């Protein structure tokens, strides 16, 4: 029975969302408000119960001597309430600064060690066709495209010296090809997003036809 109710509720909400095809209707707004409210309510419930109670307050209530280090995050969390009043707001800057400092350090360190350095090293490839002509072409395109994409974001005035002007002309020509690489990459990303959204549409249509209407096997 609960499964049947769930199917009907899901089908009705799906139709309410589809009503957006006719415009920004109140039906769509109702469905939107329901989704946002459910999502936020569930997130608050998880944060309050799964995090605050089970990992902070519960252990402190059971055995404070063993879990005494948890008093530090508890104090920092309580200090966030000082931001509610303007006169006490500076006291709330300490946990905010702690959060921002730790977050920035982790993000910068992770971006360097997890994305920038490994992916720059991956562009150092062999252009020799001895192993495979296909691989050599692929690596050549990788190098040309990477350098061209970087040069497409180069904004410099045209130099006056002949040698520098020749280098600038080469860079401009290369950046022209690099800009096409960037456009193709954006097109691929857009197509991937379109495919993903079409997959979501297919999933909902299959739900309506298979689970709700049961006209499809």
């Amino acid at each position, binding site marked *: 029975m609960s499964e049947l109710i769930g199917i009907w509720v899901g089908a009705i909400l799906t139709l309410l969302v589809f009503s957006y095809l006719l415009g920004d209707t109140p039906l769509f707004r109702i469905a939107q408000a329901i989704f946002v409210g459910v999502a936020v309510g569930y997130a608050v419930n998880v944060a309050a119960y799964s995090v605050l109670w089970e990992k902070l307050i519960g252990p402190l209530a059971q055995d404070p001597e063993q879990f005494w280090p948890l008093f530090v995050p508890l104090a920092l969390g309580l200090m966030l309430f000082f931001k509610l009043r303007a006169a006490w707001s500076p006291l709330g800057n300490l946990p905010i600064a702690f959060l921002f400092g730790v977050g920035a350090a982790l993000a910068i360190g992770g*971006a360097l060690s997890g994305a920038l350095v490994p992916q720059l090293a991956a562009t150092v490839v062999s252009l020799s066709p001895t192993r495979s002509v296909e691989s050599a072409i692929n690596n050549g395109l990788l190098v040309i495209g990477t350098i061209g994409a970087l040069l497409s974001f180069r904004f410099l005035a045209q130099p006056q010296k002949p040698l520098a002007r020749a280098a600038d002309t080469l860079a401009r020509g290369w950046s022209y090809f690099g800009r096409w690489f960037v456009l193709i990459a954006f097109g691929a990303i857009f197509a*991937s997003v379109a495919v993903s959204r079409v997959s979501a549409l297919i*999933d909902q249509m299959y739900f309506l036809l298979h689970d709700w209407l049961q006209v499809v096997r």
Partner: protein
Amino acid sequence: MCSTPNSTDSVFCNNCGARVVPLLAGEDRVPPPIKGLSLPVKPVTPPAEIAPAPRAEESQDWLANLRAAAPVQDTPESLDELPDWLREANAPADADARSQETQSAPAEQVPEDDSWMRELRQKAAVEPVTPAVEETEADEPSWIRDARRAATAESPSEPARADASPEMDWIAHARDVTATPATPAGETENDPAWLENLRPTRAEIVTRGEIAGDAEGAFNDEIPDWLSDAERARAIPETRDFLTPRAGETPAEETPEWLRMAMPSASPPLEPAAASEIPAWVAQLKPLPATPPSAGEPVEMSGPLAGLRGILPLAHALAQVHPRVALRARSNGATGAQVFESILAAPAAAELPRSIPRRVALTLRPVIFILLLLAVTIPFFLPANFASANLRISGTLAAEFFDTVQTLPANSTVLLAFEYDASVAGEMDLLAHAITRQLMQRRVKIVAISTLEAGAPIAQRVLQSAAAASNYRVGVDYVNAGFLAGQEAGVAQFAASGWGANAVDFERRALRQLPLTANLKSARDFALVIEFAGSDDALKLWMEQAQARANLRVAAATSAAAEPKARAYKDAKQLIALVSGLTGAAQYEVLSNQPGQAIVRLNAQSAAMMALVLIVVLGNVAYVIARVRGKA
């Protein structure tokens, strides 16, 4: 010599041209001129011999002789420093006062003093004396004392104070004389002629605006102009600048020429200029006369202004009824208004070409919706599956992913990160179900986790669905560890040191008490980490915070939208395997011999893609045709 005061560095008098500095012997010796310079050279004056100061006896003899010979016509040397008008007007009295100062003797010791002078001195001795003031005034110059007396005489409440000092000057004598209005005629007749001349008539007092009948006013009338100016300057101390001499400062006669020129001159009092002489712009600057507060203005009831009326007149002004004033347009404003009206009255310019008529746009949008809906729906009713027949399997990323899972040893532990929510569940659920079933076929133990609040129930649903078919036990073969809080910090901490001591799973069981997770200390204990990433942000989170820090073996199953970003990690060999989208799920179902919903939906996706391509092509053709017609 004309006795004109000259500056100290002047050699010749500025008025008469007479030599001021005495010519000394040897001065005519001109020093040799400096070659190359044509500027006038000031002759170098050798140190002059200091003339011996006359002895006191000689000075007294000289003064006594002068007094005996002609006491009236005698002019002391100090008078040379006074201006001519002052010396001429007060020579007799000044001579008398100076003789007293020089001799410093009491009046009784003056043998040749006249009787009238004795009477005057006796009158002065009767006046009240203020010793402190007298001592102070004795050190001051005479002109400062005069100014002070004049200022004191202006105050009606303060009685006129005479200076009883034996060094009383001519002004004190004159005030003593004029301060006695009821002087008998006999005594007046005994006064000398020059003293009678000093006494102003009553008509003069009235004419000059002084207080009628007041002796002090008469005294003020006799004050020279420069002293009157000093009085005015003293009466207005705020407007007095630094050049005005104060009490105790250097008098004007002792100042150099350049400084006297800079000093404010004793000009007559300013009189209001005639209206015709005042420029219009100056007349506009004249402040309006302050309007006395009327009875209708509010009275302040509280605060420091309590009791005052009309101090804060804003509220009263706002409450008043303001009559409507008809504004007159200026000539240039009227001209501008006419130009603006002519612009408005002119026929409108050619209308801008509208790219797409609204009616056409309204009709095209439902057509696109209907076309896409048919493309998605119709394949479900077709008996044949065209897409699966042409599905390429070997050499694909899905095959590589499948081989990676197949190489996992039995009873090894794999971490599944469910990093997607309901928005991409349509394609991600298919991938998650297919991979989880393959893992359970391989008897690989599974631990699930999620950094999204909505990820934990999705993991629970996928695991329970797959475990029911594979006879997997909770806590022994698989565990849903639930929500991992902290985002970057949480993932980094988990990669380094695993869960905390008080961590619980999705069903509130302590992880350290479960057989599967009791021996897991960190993320390195997992044979493989498979991330189900619905977005590239979730993939980046695990790649940057877990894979790079703990050097984990990570494989990713992503949505189609996150595939371009995941390919970069795959090409950089940070991901050991990658599968994405509905196509990857269908390939995986075929590879694992588990035909499911992915293959069924693949037809609909293919049809939808064809419909989208058709719409894009038709749209571009229509755009080109419209552009060609527009140019033609």
